[in-house]
């Protein structure tokens, strides 16, 4: 049995969606309000998508300084798995748990559509059930998903195999044309050095039901469960 916790900020709006996905995958899940100062015992902490505190300042900036976040940072340092999706990824970069930043999409518009991503590293706790280079069809929904980082960090991401997913086309080609938001090197998700933290812009929790979309997100949760 795996225990999961979903951090709920007042402006989180994918919290219910991720809870449904986790419960479907047999996680014992708890919702944790942002004003809490203690986390329940968790094997996985999820920071869901949404607009944490409205994001009028900079996406995730205030959430990165919230009460509960100190606990998340402590848990992360002790090796707990942390998954930040969309706004959750933005918050993780604000806390410094992940390096780099998410800039506005290069077309300066909100983008919601299904895109393709490629599994770049399948030897992690988040992706072991996927095949290497497997192509997933997955939904993105964001204003600021244009990942950017400095040269040194980018080299580190490549050398240490810390790129989780890259945007690609239906045949797996990673090109400018298959890059929806301008992210550097088509990066859709990254790990920290210890690979216990994953930040990703696409929404795996939206891809767990054939009636609504597809089931390409299921193996992410199944990998964690493993």
């Amino acid at each position, binding site marked *: 049995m795996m225990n999961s916790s979903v951090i709920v900020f*007042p*402006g989180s*709006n*994918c919290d*219910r*969606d991720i809870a*449904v*996905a986790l419960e479907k995958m047999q996680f014992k899940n708890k919702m944790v309000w942002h*004003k809490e100062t203690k986390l329940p015992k968790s094997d996985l902490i999820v920071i869901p*998508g*949404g*607009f944490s*505190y*409205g*994001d*009028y300042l900079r996406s995730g900036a205030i959430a990165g300084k919230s009460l509960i976040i100190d606990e998340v940072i402590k848990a992360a340092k002790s090796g707990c798995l942390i998954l930040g999706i969309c706004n959750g990824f933005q918050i993780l970069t604000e806390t410094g748990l992940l390096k780099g930043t998410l800039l506005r999409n290069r077309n300066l*518009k*909100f*983008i*919601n*559509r299904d895109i393709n991503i490629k599994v770049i590293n399948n030897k992690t706790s988040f992706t072991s059930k996927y095949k290497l280079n497997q192509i997933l069809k997955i*939904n993105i*929904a964001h*204003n600021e998903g244009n990942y950017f980082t400095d040269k040194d960090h980018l080299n580190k991401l490549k050398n240490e195999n810390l790129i989780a997913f890259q945007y690609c086309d239906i045949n797996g080609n990673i090109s400018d044309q298959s890059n929806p938001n301008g992210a550097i090197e088509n990066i859709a998700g990254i790990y920290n050095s210890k690979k216990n933290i994953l930040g990703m812009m696409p*929404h795996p*929790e*939206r891809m767990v*039901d054939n*009636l*609504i*979309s597809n089931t390409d997100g299921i193996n992410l949760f199944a990998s964690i469960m493993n």
Partner: protein
Amino acid sequence: MQITDKIIENHGLTKDEYKNIQKLLKRNPNLLELGIFSAMWNEHCSYKSSRIHLKKLPTKGKQVIQGPGENAGVIDIGDEDAIIFKIESHNHPSYIEPYQGAATGVGGILRDVFTMGARPIALLNSIHFGSPSHPKTKSLLNGVVSGIGGYGNCIGIPTVAGETKFNETYNENILVNAMAVGHAKKSKIFYSKAKGVNKAVVYVGSKTGRDGIHGASMASAEFNDNSEEKKPTVQVGDPFTEKLLLEACLELMRDDSIIAIQDMGAAGLTSSSVEMASKGLLGIELNLEKVPCREENMTPYEMMLSESQERMLIILEDGKENHAREIFKKWDLDFVVIGKTTNTGNLTLKYNDNLEGEIPISLLSSNAPIYDREFSKKRVPNDKIKIKDLKKIKLEDALLKILSSPNHSNKSWITNQYDQMVMCDTAQRSGSDAAVIRIHGKDKAIAVTVDSSANYCKSHPYTGGKQIVSENWRNLISVGAKPLAITNCLNFGNPENKEIMGEFAECLDGIKKACEFLNFPVVSGNVSFYNGTNKKNIDPTPVIGGVGLIKKLVQPINHIFKGSNNIIILIGKTFGHLEQSCYLKENYSIIKGKPPEVNLLNEKNNGEAVLNLINLSLISSAHDISSGGLITALSEMSLGSNFGVKIKKPKKLTSSIEYFFGEDQSRYILEIKEKNLIEVEKILQSKNIYYEKIGFTQDNNFEIEGEMKISINDLFKVNNQWYNNY
């Protein structure tokens, strides 16, 4: 302060209306009271020109729990489930400040739905702009689309369907109509009727600022060249606060703390307090010094007329105050008891115990003026168009012209800016005839869609009114839903003009006729008059928002072809009605003649037969035929799939243009696997449904035998080129 003629005029009241106020009050009103009268008596709040006609609409049915008169309409979808929905206009603010105008339009309609206890589950919109070449269109379009997206995406409710149209009639007055749909438990629906004396009146939500003062009066006047100066009357939206308000309200609604609740929409604190007291035949006393204010030194006048967003007024049961306060504190929202209900029947306004104004509530509501405005009827236009006299255009060229036109080109560049997937229950996203939203945690779903046909309504309002209701009905059927009820947003010009009033009255007659015949009642809606600038009125544009039920969602059906070598069946008779057609408009710039007639009996029979076939899982895809006719509908089924068609031309054909581009009503295209054909034909014949087998699907090419053949790729390029070059 002396009330001068100028002040009366600035409040949008006529001299006669002012005299009436003096008579009813038996004294002169002070400025605060005048402001309150103007807010309650303007067209937007009082429906003074439309009320007589709105009464004609059918609003009842087995499926209706609450018809018009509340914040939104409520229908029964079986078990414990109710759907609460409404559409509303935000045209004037959006023209002046497109981003905020559109955003607060979405925010306002969402509050109407969650005020009644529903969690919103879908947003829709119908937006109309001027000609793409008009200098303002591009920035208005961008602003409105980002505003709609900005609000819905942030609050986390999927924007799932809509329509975007361009026509020069909206050059100086765009239309922005937003619809919200929510789900509630039948036993947990909240109304706005106050009950009991000395009950706490609580203000919750955002603080009150000076934004939006006189917004409702602005929406009740024509624009002129100085409209830009009205920018300060546009409100500013804060979707994050609305999200807090939504969650806090739904949390409080879990128990029995609330007696009545009303959102502060148009005319803010004034209309919400008057509305609740008036429905409960009570009085209400407000202590205005307690109103949470965003700005310093706000006067009672400003507080009562502010249209600051994201605010609610709640009447609480005794002893529930602390419990309610805790919930709003958790969500970091203001919660202040600002008054109480009374038995005086008056709206009593105090500031630090000084009486600032007092008006009998009945004068503001039931005594508000009602006008039976003069109107003229429209004859059926009889100008005929002879195709033979027009310059010949090849079928293929005419089709490509339509598919590349602003109105028919691919709109995914708009819908991709809206989060359609949040909440994870969107089974059919926008782009199909209707969107399909699953009821969370259940296997049933609702279908939702919005429609309008302004040129049909302009040419013959009665037929146009019938047509839009029918088209909406057809769109719901096409995704396998049983149509249940509609909401309408009636966008018209100046009602003081008898031709415009005629358009209004006759459109409503048409809507009534179709709604009655199809058992498709109107449960909520909104009237927007004075759409026009400098005496130039827009074409009449009633917008219909429909909701249907899919009892068991097994496999959502849409309009996209599913395979090769499937049989294509055309349901309904084709007469070749080209007047008012998209074909003539796009190819010859001719907008003439009468709209296509709707035979409601055929509409009903054809629709029910198609729904029956879908429910029996005999259909692979379905699409209704509307603007652009048969060939446009076929091409829409090909776009988005890799499958084309091979269509045989009927032998006895007078003109292929009429056959393929005619906009005759009550028609559908169905894709059917060969193995299901015998069963399908048996059913259609047994129900006496007219149908034609017109061809089959094939790989790659879109082909009309002897007329045209084009690859799907090329068709796709043409359909996407307009925006890329805009």
